[in-house]
Every structure is written in structure tokens, then in C-alpha cells.
């Protein structure tokens, strides 16, 4: 029963994070386009935009934050794997539970602070300091979503490692961490 629940939770999170992660890839070409647009507008038409600077920074922030959960799912976040690669799978799952918990604490604190910042941004009408002065509130919503996804993914990873530690079996056939782990692209 509980196993089933965990299993379906992990599968659901996997698909959600995968979907968001893949979608974020489409911001890359848009980001490049905005910067090229600014260069062309400024150099060839002598009329730099007032929005490209902030818009490109927002896209940069969205890409960086939102892909964080996907990177965790793919085990693409950089780690120092020297000792890690040489311990028994059960020890490794303990290591994972501990380090993912530290990461989870971090992600939860970011969510907590971002919610605060969001309300502040609404209350005081916070904007960027540029002439264009776009709103800031959506950035904090995005951070909550990004770190929410990251937390869901971390919880899923902690559960899978805990299941492996207790039973010695994998709950999801191709779950990473426990034997070979896939990484990146």
C-alpha cells in the first residue's frame, strides 16, 4: 500500500519535472534572439531598446532556476564523487539521504523567503531599477515553482534511497543512485 503510494508519487514527480525541464530548453533560443535583437537595434538602427537588458536577465534567471529540478533528476548537479563511487550501494544510499536532505532544507528555505518577497513585491509594487521598470513579483513566483519542483524531486529521491536502504531493492526499475547512475544529457 505505502509502497504503491510512494511509487506513484515518484512517477508523477518524474513526469512533471521532466516536462518542465524539457520546456525550459525552449527559452534558450529566445534568450539568444533577444540579445541579438538588442545588438542589431543598437548598432544598425541606433535605437537600443529599453527592455532587452532586463528581459534577457529574467530569461537567464528562469532558465537557471527552473532547470534545477530537472538537473537533480538527471543527476547533473556537480558532486565530488571520489569517496562516493567507492562505497557499497547501501552506504551510498545513506550518503544520498543525508545530502539530499541538506539540499531539501536549502530549497525549502528559498521557497519560504521567496513567498515573503512575493508579498513584499506586490505590497510595494517592486520593479527593476531600469527605465523599462518591469515588475518583480513574477520572478518570486517562478522561484517558488522552481524550488517547489526541486523539493518534490528531492523528496522522491530521498524516498527511493530510503526504500533501497531498507529493502535492498529498487522501487523503480531505472532509478539512479543505487548502482550505476546516469548523468547529464
Amino acid at each position, binding site marked *: 500500500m505505502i509502497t504503491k503510494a510512494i511509487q506513484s508519487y515518484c512517477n508523477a514527480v518524474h513526469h512533471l519535472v521532466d516536462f518542465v525541464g524539457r520546456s525550459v530548453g525552449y527559452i534558450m533560443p529566445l534568450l539568444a534572439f533577444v540579445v541579438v535583437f538588442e545588438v542589431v537595434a543598437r548598432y544598425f538602427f541606433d535605437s*537600443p531598446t529599453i527592455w532587452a537588458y532586463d528581459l534577457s536577465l529574467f530569461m537567464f534567471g528562469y532558465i537557471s532556476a527552473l532547470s534545477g529540478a530537472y538537473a537533480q533528476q538527471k543527476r547533473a548537479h556537480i558532486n565530488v564523487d571520489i569517496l562516493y563511487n567507492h562505497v557499497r550501494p547501501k552506504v551510498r544510499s545513506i550518503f544520498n539521504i543525508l545530502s539530499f536532505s541538506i539540499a531539501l532544507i536549502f530549497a525549502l528555505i528559498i521557497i519560504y523567503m521567496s513567498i515573503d518577497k512575493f508579498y513584499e513585491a506586490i505590497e510595494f509594487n517592486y520593479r527593476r531599477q531600469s*527605465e523599462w521598470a518591469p515588475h518583480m513579483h513574477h520572478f518570486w513566483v517562478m522561484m517558488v515553482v522552481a524550488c517547489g519542483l526541486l523539493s518534490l524531486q528531492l523528496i522522491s529521491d530521498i524516498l527511493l534511497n530510503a526504500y533501497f536502504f531498507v529493502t535492498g531493492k529498487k522501487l523503480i526499475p531505472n532509478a539512479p543512485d543505487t548502482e550505476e547512475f546516469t548523468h547529464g544529457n
Partner: protein
Amino acid sequence: EHNWRFANLYSRGTAYGELYENLGKNIEQMSAGKIKVQVLYSGEGVGSSGILGAVKSGLVTMGAPFQSMHAGELPAGVVEIGLPGGTDDVGELSTLFHEKGWDKVLKEAYGAQGLVWLDPYIQPPVYIITKKPINSVADFKGLKIRAPGAYGKFLRQLGASPVSLAWSEIYTSLSTGVIDGSIGSNMIDHRDGNHVEVAKYMYRLPLAGAQVLPIVVNRSAWNKLTPELQAIVSAATTIHAREQMTKSKLWESQAVAEMEAKGLKWSPEPSAEDKAAWKAAAASLWDEYAKSDKYSAQLIEILKKQ
């Protein structure tokens, strides 16, 4: 009893950095050690655009922010620092702040965000450096000039094209010609950025007469002080303001002399029409800024009455 962190925008060991260090030391001495102040310089835990937020949240207790960086958080600060076309007359500024009521409006504006606004100090004005001489205001037409926020809007009124760039790219961009000119937050900033190596001409009219900058304190930390200690901190900021005034003048002239030694030239003296065009461009901004929030509106209303 009170451990304070005081963040400013300058590097350790710079001339301005020392002034803030003195302020910290004065608070410690005058309070007989009851308030201990740890001064945080540029890069030491808080980014330059994060000072206001950090004081507000209490991450640092006291801060010397540069309001242009917080235009999106506290628009009235941009009016406070001095919109283009503002005066540089110290007496006039003092009346504006202390008699005409700017202090009350600003106390309220900062107070609404949990900040205590202490007496401001004055720093030298913003100037613009260009690669080619500006013989008349018409020469600004089509020039790409790095000028953020209010200064950008002002230059657009004169036909220039304001560009947004990171500070650390100004030098390279001037040298390759991505931009034709840049403002500096004052002459000292132009010198420190080595702009004169890649652009030779300083325009004679400052963008804003003088820059008025506040010291802000986190409200809950402030409320923990006894009235005597509050008076001591206020007194220390008054001493600091005086120091800023005398030292800034000296450092500004030193910076100009150093740049002149490296080949800085001045664009020709602007004509009467140029000065009028400059003023008109500035005045057109006031109404726009009055719209940004209610505190800005109140400040500009007072300003117009003057």
C-alpha cells in the same frame, strides 16, 4: 549590547570607504562601546543593489545605499538623490530638506518599508564623458550613452540613445565603440573606471546638481536603542555628513586633476541656448517622476513651489 553591521558600496581601503569606517568608529566611541559596528565593504556579503533590501530585512543593521540602484523598490529615493536639473547649492538643499518638508516625506516613505531614514549627506554630481567633444547640445543626437534609469530618460529628451550595460563592461564598450559615452556616478567613479583612457571629453554641465544620499537603519534594531543611543547615532551621521562634504570636494578635484594629467579634455563651454535646452529636458521629467508613487508626487510638489 548592540552588534550592528553597516554595509556600504565602496571597497575596503578606498577614500570613501574610510569615511564610512569613521562613521562606524564614531558610533562605537560616542556610545562608549554600547553599539559595536562591523563595516561591510563592496562585495562583503551584500551586493550593491541589495543594500536597501538587506537593511529592511535586518540582514544588515545600517546601510549607505545609492538610491538609483533601488529605483524599482523606492522610487522616491530617485527624487531624493536629485533629478536631472536639480540644484547643487548646499544652502538651497538644506532648506529643501529641513524647512520645506522633504525630510518629513522621506521619513514616511522609508518608514513605510520598515526603514529609519537618518539625515542625508551630499556627494558630488554626475557627469558624462564622451569619446567626441560635445560642441552643442545637438551633438548628443544619436549618441549611444550608458545611462541607467532617470539619467537615461533625461538624455533621451536630448536625442541621445541611452544604453544599459554592466558597470564592468563600460571600459571595454567605450574602447571598442559599442557606446559613445557614459555617465559616472561622480568624477571619482570616472577616474576609478579608467574611462579617460578610452574617452577623452567631459561635458561641463552635470546631470544632477548634487547627489543626496541617506543613511538608513533597520527599524526594529533602531527601536531597541534607548533614546540616548538613538541621539548618538543621529549625531554621528551629522558628523559623517560634514566629513563627506569637505572630503568630497577635495577628492573630486583630485580626481579631475588626475584625469586631466591622463589627457582629459573638457567639451566647450555650453551656450545659453544649450543650458536652456538642458533645463527644459530636465523639467519635462519632473511630472513623469511625480507619477511614480505618492511620495515622489509630494516631493516634487514641494520642489515646484520653491
